[in-house]
Every structure is written in C-alpha cells, then in structure tokens.
C-alpha cells in the first residue's frame, strides 16, 4: 500500500455570468456587490435584474464596514481546507450599506471567546486556501469607548 498525502483545499467558487463580477473585484482587491442602477438597492446574492424593480444591476465597491449579526465558532472540520484553522469564527456580517444586506464570512484577528454580536468589522481580501480565488474576510475594528 502506498501512502497518499492529501493536501486539503477549500471549496472553490463556481462563478456564473451573474456572480463573476464579485470574483473579478476580489481579484483586484475590492469588495463589490451587485447594485440596482435604477432604484440603487444592493442585492446579494447578485442577480442580473433587480429583484425589486427589475432594473439593470452592476457591481459597485462597498465600504467593507459592518457589524456582527450572528456568529458561530466552528470546532468540527466539516468542510475540507479548514482542519488546521480550528476553531474558527464565521459571522453573518450586516453591512453598513443597507439594513439586511449580509455576507457570511470568516472573521480574522479575533479570538472566538472575544467575538460578540454587534461587534464592528472591516472587510479585507484574502486568499481562498489552495485556490487562485480571493475572498473577503472581516476583522474587528477598535471602537471608541462610550
């Protein structure tokens, strides 16, 4: 029997015509989301035509500022590519651009035990493990004491 070394790669995105703008933006180092060019609403996941008014959409950069809406601490390696990172934090990030506009993303620069709902975050671009693709992650930002 030969010993096979398995190198874990994270799942890769499979972009299509409606979503490729997101991945082109991250390749440039930007976070961009689909936005209606008529009513100006942001939409994620992106669609060719606005869900609200059927107007044309285009990808526009977002500020990357948001806050933790909810989060989990992942302890079990349920998805390939992450066993070396356990435990890691995944958050639903509510973006400042629009109420209810959310990205699910990994948090960086924070201990699981220090993560809280409402925590302020700033997005940045990082690699998808074992892939050419790049993706936004979020890092807590210091907020002024009240």
């Amino acid at each position, binding site marked *: 029997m030969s010993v096979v070394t398995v190198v874990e*790669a*994270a*799942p*890769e*995105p*499979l*972009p*299509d015509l409606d*979503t490729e703008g*997101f991945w082109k933006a991250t390749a440039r180092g930007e976070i961009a989301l689909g936005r209606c060019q008529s009513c100006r609403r942001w939409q*994620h*996941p992106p669609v060719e035509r606005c869900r609200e008014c059927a107007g044309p959409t285009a990808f526009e950069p977002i500020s990357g500022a948001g806050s933790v*809406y*909810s*989060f*989990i*601490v*992942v*302890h*079990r390696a*349920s*998805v*390939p*590519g*992450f066993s070396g*990172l356990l*435990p*890691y934090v*995944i958050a*639903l990030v509510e973006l400042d651009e629009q109420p*209810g506009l*959310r*990205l*699910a*993303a*990994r948090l960086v620069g924070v201990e*699981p035990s220090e993560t809280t*709902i409402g925590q302020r975050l700033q997005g940045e671009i990082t690699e*998808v*493990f074992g*892939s050419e*693709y790049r*993706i936004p*992650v979020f890092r807590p930002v210091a907020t002024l004491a009240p």
Partner: protein
Amino acid sequence: MSTAIAGIGRTEYSRNSGRTTMAMAAEACRGAVADTGLDLAEVDGMICFQAAGDSVGPLAVSQSIGLPELAWSIDMNGGGNVVANVIATAAAAIEAGLCRAVVAYRSLNGRSGYRFGTATGKLSVGGPLQFEAPHGYLVPPQWIAMWAKRHQHVYGSTCEDLGQIATTQRAHAVNNPHAINRTPLTMDDYMAGRWINEPFRIFDCAYEIDGAVAILIVGRELAASLRQPPVWLVGSGDSQSGRGWTEWDDPTQMYSRYAAPRLWNRTGLSAEDMDVACMYDCFTYTVMATMEDFGFCEKGGVGEFFAKGQATYGGDVVVNPHGGLLSEGYIHGLNHYYEAALQLRGQGGERQVPDAKLALVTAGAGPYGGASVLSSEEP
C-alpha cells in the same frame, strides 16, 4: 375525498447497513403494504425524496418489488424540507384521481454513505453558496447554529434550553426499541458534550444513521377495507423560501412562521389540540424555533416548557415520543410520520401516549419546510 395513512414499514436502523438504498427501500415499501393486508399489485403510485442523488427513485424501487408500472410517481429533490410536501402531494394525487394507493419512502445510508453534516473532496460550489463555501461555511450544523446564536442574543435562550430538548427526547428514546441511541442523557452529560459549532454541541445534532421508512397512503374507500386503523390526514401547510440561510430576515423564526398559520387555518385546529408533536429535529434549535412558530409557547419559552415537563408524558403534548432524529435516528423526517401513525393507532407500546388522537408532524428547518396534522378519527 379524505386520505389516510393505511400502512407503515421500515428497516432496521444502524450506523452501517451494509446494504444498498435500493435493498432498504424495497424492504420498507413491502413492509408498508404488508402491514395493511393490501395486495401489492394494488399499489399504483410511488413517491420518494432524495438529496444530492443519495438514494434511488420510484421507478427502480417499484421494479425491484415486482410492480411492472406505476400510474403516478415523483422523485422529489430535497431533504427534510420536502417531507410534508411528499405526504401532501401523495394525498393530492389520490384526491385528484390520479392513483389509489401511494407508497412514500425515504431510504438513505445517512451515516455510512453520504453525510449531510460533512462536505468532502475537492469542491466547486455554484449558486448562492459560492460566496460562503470558500470560508468553510457550507453545512446545516453551521447554518442552524448561526440561527440559534441569534435567538440566544434576541430572546436570551440558552444552551441549557437546547439541552432540555435533547435530554427529554433521549428519555423518550429509552423506551423505543427501534431507536439507535437509548443511553440516558443528563443535563451534565449534555453540557459535557464536545462542541460541533458553538452554540451546538454533539447532542444538539441529529444522530446520522442508515435505514429506510415507507408510508402507504390511500383514499377513504380503500382505507376502510384494510387491516390497520386508518390514520387520517387532516391538513397540510408548507412554506418554501428562496431567501437562503444568510438572507432570511429573522433567524429567530423559521419557515413555520408562514406554514403554521396556513396549517391551523386550514384545519381549524391549534397547538393546544395536539396530543403528540413529532417536531423535525435535525438540531435542537429547529425544535425550539418551530415550537414557538406553531404556537406551543411564547418566544424564548421553549426551554422552560421542556424543563417543566410540558413536552413529555403527563404534560401538554408529547414531543417526539420516539426520540426524534436526535435519538431514534435521522431518516430525514419520514420516521416522524411512522411514529405519529403508530401513536394514533395506539400501537406505541411502552411509549404509547395515552388517548393520542391528534398529532402534528413537522419537517424542515430554516427557510424551508412544512407540516401535517394527522388524526385517529376521520375529519
């Protein structure tokens, strides 16, 4: 026309069946028909559900049990979210005159084969999940833990509240010889369980198993001629949303915020009328959120409801007398229909709910699911 569950069948449940989904489906389907005394050749409809091609469809299964053709069949794509729809659609097909006797089945090697809670291999993920999968965020025990955390934040529910659900259902499974996990579980045991995805511990997650369940549904005329007491389908309510696990506006509520009023309006019944509630429990939090939505208790009150014994024998309603997916095992929710039928037939044995006449069966979680009310009396 009224429709009823006339027969039920199932295989042994195990961690490693050593059998194909075809072999198990055939056994369960034959069992459901034999249960009633119906001539197998009378079965003219078949419906199943499967996800990611993890099972075998009605054409292959009907052929394998000696039915050369079917008047009606559907191979539905989905998980727990479509179970109530499978039952309702079978009943609707009978009511529409498309067929007379339908076997609905689910067969899966959920532990030894394709596991829903674990993704493996080199994956390329399209659709809405393409933005999340590269973060290692891709499977139900993550999505539903995320929702549970929000509920804890908004309503102050706790891990102990989830533990009340897990320990109560385990206590029920102790009296169920068919359950895969019958070891009593204390709150200390629960709290000592290893983390899967905080706030979920191992005991918050369905117990993945291999096996098959089949449910035979017929119209009134046929039901009257069969061996077992019919278990009547009083009504169904469903809700499926295209808003996924990230977009859904309020994770403290599930599909049931829409399906529950539909079901109660159609049946003229309410939570307090139910003797048995087979609540879909892929995770403890699914029971919590859906019990609130179906009106068994106030938001944030489920932990106390269980702690005070209202969800067990002698209380308001017996929740998952078989132990549910958490303890009997994960036959993707069709085993909840099996249990409800058994209870309403008065054949629950040691775990029989006294005078059980009405049962709620729910299936699904998050944005997608449905429910049925079953009755021992013709509606």
